[in-house]
């Protein structure tokens, strides 16, 4: 990979489509790199966050709770308990003498005050290192208070963000199988790895209602404890953010025989495929007919407007840097729908299969990166002369500084980008950013336009 200064240890994590071999990944970030990645706690916190009627207590010093306070646009149609920040705010004396007593007291106070359906208790680095027995505290309070108090084993240093996803799945699994499934019909599914950012879960649920499929539980978008308790009664799991939820899907398959399908609701092709996939599994012609009708209706509704955007955006170039690689596939396809070309694509947490598939999917010349950093991203964007960057909070100002349009496809998206309607929103957002009149005044474009 010439032209770009990258850490020597990172050489293998960057390649072009034509290069031989695969992107190295799944490595821990090199110490001393400006990694865009987070920690185990972060992974479990983002997955469990949307469960709105549960208490989320962070056992550690204040920071871990402060930085994860109401930062995810995961909407709830009912309770808003999850949007508060609860911390044991561990102090020096707790570090010396242990924080178990404080945690116990905190949980008693909080549960009495907020009457949640369950409580998740996150272990942070400190809880892990001072040896607080969080599971034991949770166990005794579960008995004492008569509601599930569930430990989330997520000390930041104990792995990568992906290990945090796994810890979240393990925590969720403690609720699974404890609810009544007798009312659940034969055509029923769970949505896994859909977080209701900007209300996206509601769009999905509406599609399935229209084709006659019952959504038993969405894990965890607009999530409710009682729904998770009975999710084992569903006949199929659709796994959207597979990076975060494969573990849960696999356990549900193993223990309850529920098959799963990896799907994506980003972009027209993937959304249609997800709906057809779900519809076909029940072998019910009526559901399949309704699915075809739905896709037809939705496409007819958005196609004319999409075509208008495509005309304008055709030939523009995009960079994608997202958390999970599976989302990147959909984005590459969705950008193609808009006539745009992906010239740089990367993720924080992709696995070898993801990157192999990504390589397959991309156009010639596309650069593929794992666990990148601002210098690399900025250099590639300039070198490849992109018009749009799709990423998260830390990438936005870099794109703007370079005079490049930006679309947040992470926690901070403000419009639903999933489903058919989401595809139209995506087109609108990409169009608004790429075609913003502001870029005309920025040095990069101004020099291209001439005086």
């Amino acid at each position, binding site marked *: 990979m010439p032209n770009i200064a990258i*850490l020597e240890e990172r050489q293998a994590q960057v390649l072009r489509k034509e290069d031989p071999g695969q992107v190295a990944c799944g490595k*821990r*970030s*090199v*110490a*001393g*790199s*400006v*990694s865009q990645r*987070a*920690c185990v706690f*972060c992974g479990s916190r983002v997955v469990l966050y949307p469960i709105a009627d549960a208490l989320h207590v962070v056992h550690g*010093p*204040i*920071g*871990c*709770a402060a*930085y994860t*306070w109401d930062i995810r646009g995961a909407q709830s149609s009912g309770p*808003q*308990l999850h*949007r*508060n920040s*609860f*911390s*044991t*705010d*561990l102090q*020096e004396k*707790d*570090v010396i003498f242990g924080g178990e*007593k*404080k*945690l116990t*007291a*905190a949980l008693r*106070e*909080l549960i009495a*005050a*907020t009457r949640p359906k369950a409580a998740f208790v996150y272990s942070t*680095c*400190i809880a892990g*290192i*001072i040896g607080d027995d969080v599971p034991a505290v949770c166990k005794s309070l579960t008995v004492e208070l008569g509601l599930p108090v569930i430990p989330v084993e997520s000390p*930041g*240093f104990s*792995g*990568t963000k992906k290990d945090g996803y796994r810890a979240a799945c393990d925590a969720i699994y403690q609720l699974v199988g404890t609810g009544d499934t007798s009312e659940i019909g034969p055509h029923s599914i769970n949505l896994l790895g859909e977080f209701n950012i900007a209300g996206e879960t509601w769009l999905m649920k509406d599609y399935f209602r229209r084709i006659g499929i019952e959504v038993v539980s969405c894990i965890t978008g607009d999530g409710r404890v009682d729904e998770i308790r009975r999710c084992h009664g569903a006949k199929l799991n659709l796994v959207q953010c597979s990076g975060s939820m494969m573990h849960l899907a696999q356990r549900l398959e193993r223990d309850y025989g529920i098959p799963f399908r990896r799907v994506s609701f980003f972009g027209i092709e993937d959304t249609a495929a997800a709906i057809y996939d779900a519809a076909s599994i029940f072998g019910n012609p009526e559901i399949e007919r309704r699915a075809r009708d739905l896709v037809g209706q939705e496409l007819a509704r958005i196609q004319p407007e999409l075509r208008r955007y495509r005309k304008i955006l055709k030939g523009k170039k995009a960079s994608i840097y997202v958390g999970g690689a599976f989302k990147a596939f959909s984005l590459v396809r969705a950008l193609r729908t808009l006539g745009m070309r992906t010239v740089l694509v990367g993720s924080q947490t992709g696995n070898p299969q993801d990157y192999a598939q990504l390589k397959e999917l991309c156009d010639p010349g596309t650069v593929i990166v794992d666990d990148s950093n601002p*210098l690399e991203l*900025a250099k590639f964007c*300039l070198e490849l002369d992109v018009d749009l960057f799709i990423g998260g*909070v*830390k990438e*936005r*100002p*870099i794109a703007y*500084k370079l*005079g490049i349009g930006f679309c947040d496809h992470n926690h901070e998206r403000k419009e639903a980008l999933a489903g058919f309607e989401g595809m139209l929103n995506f087109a609108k957002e990409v169009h608004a950013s790429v075609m913003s009149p502001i870029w005309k005044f*920025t*040095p990069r474009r101004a020099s291209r336009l001439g005086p």
Partner: protein
Amino acid sequence: MLNSTTATISERNALVVNPAKTCQPIGAMYAALGLHSCMPHSHGSQGCCAYHRSQLTRHFKEPVAATTSSFTEGASVFGGLANLQQALVNIFGIYNPDIVAVHTTCLSEVIGDDIPTIIKKSREEGKIPEGKVVIHANTPSFVGSNVTGFANMCTAFVTYLAEKSGAEATPTNVFPGWLDPSDMREIKRLAAELGAPITLCPDTSDVLDLPQTGIYEMYPKGGTTLAQLKGLGDSPRTIALGKFTAHPAAEALEKKCGVPFDALDAPIGLTNTDLFIDALRQAAGVEVPASIEAERGRLLDAMSDIGQYFHNVPVAIFGDPDTVIAVTRYALELGMVPKYVFTGATGKAFENRVHELLDGPCPAAIVKAQADLLELHERIKGDPVKLIIGNTHGKHIARAEDIPLVRVGFPILDRVGHRLFPTVGYRGAMRLLEKFSDALLDHHDRTCAEEWFELVQ
């Protein structure tokens, strides 16, 4: 979202709900960004660094680069020596800063990593290139708060780098404490207008308020330089603006190099700015020019013009202690009645200083350190205020109680003004004056009965 909050003050002994503070390392990272060509380094798990960078990015809307030791299970058992050494090699090898400013985290503190020894060893082993500087501050997350971390890193600048060479140095040191880049810029403008040469330390202007240039620079032109840091010890005087975030470094400098200091509050509002200008005038031996007199006069004029709307208006003020202390004074100058004055930070010094300001005019005020926003909400629910002054985290209370919120302090995650306009100085006071009065009058216009809705105000 906070509709379940009641007017009863809940008894809580072991729990913070909706904190009015965060942890030390983010303060250390922000302070280090105010040095020229400096890479802040977080010695801990990856998440700390990612969270701090994200939060600073949300506030400043700027790219924030910082590196991490990326702790693993191994490091947490065997110590972080290897991680930090590898990090230093990589940082200098690829990002090539002049300075690496290491701060610890809860994890590396509990493990007990001895950073000075690791730095020394790294230097001996040639892992730190010639001419490059590595400094550190201990910033355990379970002690103090974000302001402590800021102060500790600023103190490290002094203890590691300030020298008394005996050279004749004229600049007055100004330690601004935790202010926004727009404020740092305003302090430099005031000093230039006054004709007083200063060394501002740290200085995040031209680091975190960059123009759109079409390029991404890891080390922009701003920040206090190494030469300036060394020169701190030769300065005749330091002006330190804020008990919590500026005074500790000034004390350290006095101790190390014998530089005396003026211990002031942040220059927010009329009197606090007067005190700052006066200290600067004396330190530099200059006269206050007519242009600054006129600026002050315009502020005073605006205060007189609009003062009727502030008279006896009850307000709640919360956030980091130096900001809250200074804003409380300004609120009093405007005729408002601070009713709740809260910080999440620790320390009796906060309550003492605010009581000094409020015991005469507002003896009923409730002043609390180590408080959280749930308690603030409970109190407001029981006995409301007309205006809330604080950071973005106040917006939930503001919405639930339909009380206008003026955003001042850190973090501001949902508005842009703080990046562009200062809060400090006479101009900053003018801006706050406009924001306070707009908030009160907009609220009145939106909510009052038709017959009380007036064109002219």
